[in-house]
């Protein structure tokens, strides 16, 4: 009896403890949110967007200094690794390629689920949807710049497990259709985005206009200049845009730029807060306090986990906050390309007419009277960073022309006629092959953060990477206006940018030509990820980087000309004169040097105009046609 009772008790306990069998496995997880939960809380939707913002890719970003060091605009000061930039003779066909359809699919899913969400407010939902579409267009724009037309997938695709994947395989659209898509998306969503100058790290109306302006300009110039390289095209239009469309694209670009310039998206303007024009130009990249110039940025924040080490790897080595620095050394090619204040070009005065060296009292004197952006972009010998002067000088030159120098930073030797050893080379170099020193004679200034601690590994820098800024919009507008024959309008926009750089002699309508515009973009936008895409769309890259080694005569002639080839980075080294009793004693001279490490030349092949779509991608989707001129 007792036994039966206990069995009944046990059985009833089981019965009571169980759910119906049908519900046995339906238990909500405690650590995962389902779609309905996730899309009903604006904070959660924003966190999903944050992930997408984080995954956008840029070429030449502060997160990766190697990507900035190429194209003979600088010398990479590192043993091994990026040093190969100056040792190789050509770019791989796969360079710059990107193919992240995972991101595209997730963005498509995001947009689909967002539109099904029920509990979000209408205005929230609109803005989130606009941001999702902005980010999708941003990535497609990034893809078309590099790969040409790609499959334009706008809905999340799902595998049906039936074994035949052909319905998931999309062919490439035309390059023109990609640009049309980006332009149309920006026009469609811009009114759903806030017209607020202070929204910078999220999509704003200004960012949409800036992207539309840039995309239309790219499409216009590919259409117009595609004829220079007829073999860079595909019969299906996946690469190349018909010349007839150029006018239309330039018109759209100018219109978008003018909407932004006239203030419909908020009052953006050039950054002008510092009377010292060079400092002002440098500050526009590190000043985060309601900077009127930046439009769309990738933001970083101290103590949040999202910081970067750009200052740490590029700070002057002497007195650096970390045992490294000085990676990117801008080349003499770039330095001498900055204009003189009378709007003319010329090499840095090193020798007089008779071939004798010119003696300078101060190291910086040689750079006087040039575009203020020079010292804002490049840390010149004799200038300071974080209130410490950079110590860049290569040695003593004696009366007979011989040089006394050392092979370590700040090494000491005894000069003739003296008894005590003295320092014979700068603590920042330059010394050939000595990493961290200014091997080209210069350090980079742009994007370097003057805040204390920004150069240490533990702290890092919160200087944002600017993806779109007002000066670029002005230059885009100038170029579009020039291509449409409105040279006067173009000159007006360019003069605004130039005036901020101290070039106060205005250009007239007759001075504007494509070479001027190319030069202006190089001076204003160097190290911001424009050079390769600009040269590609002008179909000028194979002229600029033609693979022919440079000599000194080459380097010093045709400065400012768009056809001047630029295949090897040159250096400019300062020397101190040691000639007691002579008036030149203690003065500075400069010499042009080509580093022995520069053994390669940059050659841009026709197949580099669009990146290689690798064989795996093409195996998985036979509808993808390969890009031209590649093997």
């Amino acid at each position, binding site marked *: 009896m007792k036994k039966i009772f206990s069995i009944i008790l046990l059985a009833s306990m089981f019965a009571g403890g169980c759910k119906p069998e049908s519900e046995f496995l339906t238990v909500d997880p405690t650590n995962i949110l389902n779609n309905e939960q996730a899309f009903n809380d604006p904070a959660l939707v924003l966190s999903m967007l944050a992930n997408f913002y984080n995954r956008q890719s840029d070429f030449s970003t502060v997160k990766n200094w190697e990507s900035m060091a190429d194209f003979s605009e600088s010398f990479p000061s590192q043993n091994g690794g990026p040093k190969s930039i100056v040792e190789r003779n050509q770019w791989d066909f796969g360079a710059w390629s990107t193919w992240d359809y995972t991101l595209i699919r997730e963005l498509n899913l995001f947009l689909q689920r967002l539109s099904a969400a029920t509990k979000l407010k209408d205005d929230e939902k609109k803005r989130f949807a606009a941001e999702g579409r902005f980010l999708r267009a941003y990535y497609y724009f990034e893809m078309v710049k590099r790969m040409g037309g790609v499959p334009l997938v706008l809905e999340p695709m799902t595998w049906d497990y039936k074994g035949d994947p052909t319905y998931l395989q999309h062919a490439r659209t035309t390059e023109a259709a990609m640009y049309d898509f980006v332009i149309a998306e920006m026009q469609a969503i811009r009114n759903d985005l806030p017209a607020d100058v202070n929204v910078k790290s999220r999509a704003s109306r200004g960012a949409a206009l800036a992207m539309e302006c840039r995309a239309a300009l790219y499409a216009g110039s590919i259409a117009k200049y595609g004829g220079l390289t007829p*073999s860079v095209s595909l019969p299906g239009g996946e690469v190349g845009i018909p010349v007839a469309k150029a006018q239309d694209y330039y018109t759209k670009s100018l219109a978008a730029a003018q909407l932004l310039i006239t203030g419909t998206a908020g009052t953006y303007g050039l950054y002008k807060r510092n009377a010292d024009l060079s400092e002002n130009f440098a500050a526009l990249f590190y000043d985060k306090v309601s900077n009127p110039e930046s439009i769309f940025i990738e933001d970083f924040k101290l103590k949040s986990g999202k910081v970067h080490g750009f200052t740490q790897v590029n700070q002057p080595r002497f007195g650096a906050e970390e045992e490294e620095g000085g990676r990117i050394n801008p080349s003499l090619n770039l330095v001498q390309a900055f204009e003189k204040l009378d709007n003319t070009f010329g090499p840095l005065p090193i020798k007089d007419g008779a071939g004798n060296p010119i003696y300078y009292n101060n190291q910086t004197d040689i750079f006087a009277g040039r575009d203020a952006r020079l010292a804002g972009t490049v840390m010149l010998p004799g200038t300071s960073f974080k209130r410490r002067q950079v110590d860049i000088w290569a040695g003593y030159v004696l009366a007979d022309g011989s040089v006394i120098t050392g092979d370590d930073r700040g090494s000491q030797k005894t000069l003739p006629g003296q008894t005590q050893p003295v320092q014979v080379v700068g603590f920042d170099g330059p010394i050939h092959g000595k990493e961290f020193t200014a091997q080209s004679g210069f350090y980079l200034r742009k994007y370097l953060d003057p805040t204390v601690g920004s150069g240490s590994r533990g702290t890092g820098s919160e200087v944002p990477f600017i993806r779109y800024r007002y000066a670029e919009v002005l230059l885009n507008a100038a170029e579009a206006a020039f291509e449409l024959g409105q040279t006067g309008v173009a000159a007006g926009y360019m003069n605004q940018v130039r005036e901020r750089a101290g070039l106060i002699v205005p250009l007239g309508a007759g001075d504007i030509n494509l070479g001027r515009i190319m030069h202006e973009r190089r001076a204003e936008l160097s190290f911001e990820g424009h050079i390769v895409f600009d040269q590609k769309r002008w179909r000028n890259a194979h002229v600029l980087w033609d693979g*022919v080694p440079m000599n000194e005569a080459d380097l010093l002639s045709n400065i400012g000309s768009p056809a001047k080839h630029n295949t090897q980075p040159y250096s400019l080294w300062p020397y101190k004169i040691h000639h007691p009793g002579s008036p030149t004693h203690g003065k500075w001279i400069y010499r042009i040097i080509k580093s022995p490490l520069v053994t390669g030349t940059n050659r841009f092949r026709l197949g580099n105009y669009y990146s290689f779509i690798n064989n795996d991608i093409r*195996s998985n989707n036979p509808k993808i046609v390969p890009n031209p001129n590649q093997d």
Partner: protein
Amino acid sequence: MKKRFAYILPLLALLAASCKKDNYDPPQARLHGRLVYQGQGIPVEYNQVPFQLYQFGFGKVGPVSNTTFTQEGTFSVLLFEGDYKLTVPNGQGPFLWKKLPDGRPDSIAIKISGDQQLDLEVTPFYMIRNVNMSAASGKVTATFALEKIVNGADGKNVERVNLYINKTAFVSSGGDYSIASSQKNAGAITDPASVSMEVTVPALVPAQSYIFARVGLKLQGVEDMIFSPVTKINL
């Protein structure tokens, strides 16, 4: 101890045996040849003119070999025995390659079994003929003739000719491939049947008593240059 050995020995034996089982023999059939036009070889630039070999039936798209011609215009690959197709991609090389009606490059079907020589007959846009190189008083002088081979709609015009010299037998325009060069643009060529160029030999460090030279011809709208054979010249 004994017990441990009892395990190790068969294991080692298994490993040794599996090595043989798991590995294929390396490819051993050599396919080699050169680019020719009417029996004359066509030198091209080192590592710039590619050719592709395809083998069908293995599930993936794409060439199995994707390499380039040497600067003498020769090629050589080791292959497994089987059926292959060889082609030169569109727009590559300073010559015309046969095309299919839809514009894709035609291919040559090859059955590989053992060593095989295959000369690829192509039609270059131009030929560099009667090359004569000599050195005197620190200068290298070259005389040659340019003969237009392809006329009509496919024909190309001369953009420039270059005379390159280098310390090693690799001679072309790239960084390591020339120590000096001179250039003549199309406008400066008065008589294509007799072109003369010279280039000053720079100081050779370390010194050597000879130098290699060749002439390159660049055509408008063609990326790859046509070259003359490399000549060794005693200074």
